[in-house]
């Protein structure tokens, strides 16, 4: 799966968890906590939604900081 497609589907996930988010401003360098204002609840919901959306187990050893970290993780997990 291409990175662009992963980002598009990830944005779809984020749009559900944080409906007021400006999705156009989300890119690889966007930070999850500072830029997107994600707290532990949003992170947990995002993890669960990613597992459903991509059919992978989401359990990064280090908590992701940027959107690109999440994309890298998903990309590495996908067949």
């Amino acid at each position, binding site marked *: 799966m291409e990175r662009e497609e992963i980002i598009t589907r990830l944005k779809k996930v984020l749009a559900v968890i944080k409906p007021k988010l400006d999705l156009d401003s989300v890119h690889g360098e966007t930070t999850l906590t500072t830029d997107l204002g994600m707290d*532990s609840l949003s992170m*947990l*919901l995002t993890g*669960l939604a990613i597992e459903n959306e991509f059919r992978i187990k*989401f*359990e990064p050893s280090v908590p992701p900081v940027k959107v690109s970290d999440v994309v890298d993780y998903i990309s590495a997990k996908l067949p």
Partner: protein
Amino acid sequence: MFDNVFNAVIGALVRLLFRPRLVLPDAASLDEILREPSILVCNHTSHLDGPVLNTVLYPRRIHSLAAKDRFEQWGFGWFLRHTYCIPIERRKPDMQWIRDAVGVLKKDRESVAIYPEGRHGKHRRMLPFHAGAVILALTADAPVVPVYIDGPQKLFHRTKVVIGAPQRIARPEDGISAEYANRQTELLRERIAGLMDCE
């Protein structure tokens, strides 16, 4: 086998030393709680909350969530491992506890107790709730049962345990937003606060 005997001994001690008294505002709901796996959402008063719940709802087996770091403590960790507890990471995002709890509810068809305050609250003053219980209920599609324990338990004093009626949390069609989870969590906290004065 060992765990069954150990928990029977714990149950007997809890009955003898803390004499839990079950209060059911909706008595008809007890059958359903004993029959169907559910998520007991309870204020947190002491380390004995789990054994107290297992005692008042015997024979339904209840798996309490407990801080993962406590599992590493000598003695207490051993106790948690042998009293059906599920570890939950407190200091970083953790999804394994949800997988474990969903497995207990769906596969083992047993119940889970969760203490959304995250640590021990004060008598009749609950701390703010974390939203994990609501997320678990929506993920496992299991009913939540509000519980109020009038603790902390004191030796040879009766401990009142008020158990409300099971309720399912509606799953929004467009997915679970953080705002929805927080709103449902606040409603759940209000339901538990509403049990405080039941006799």
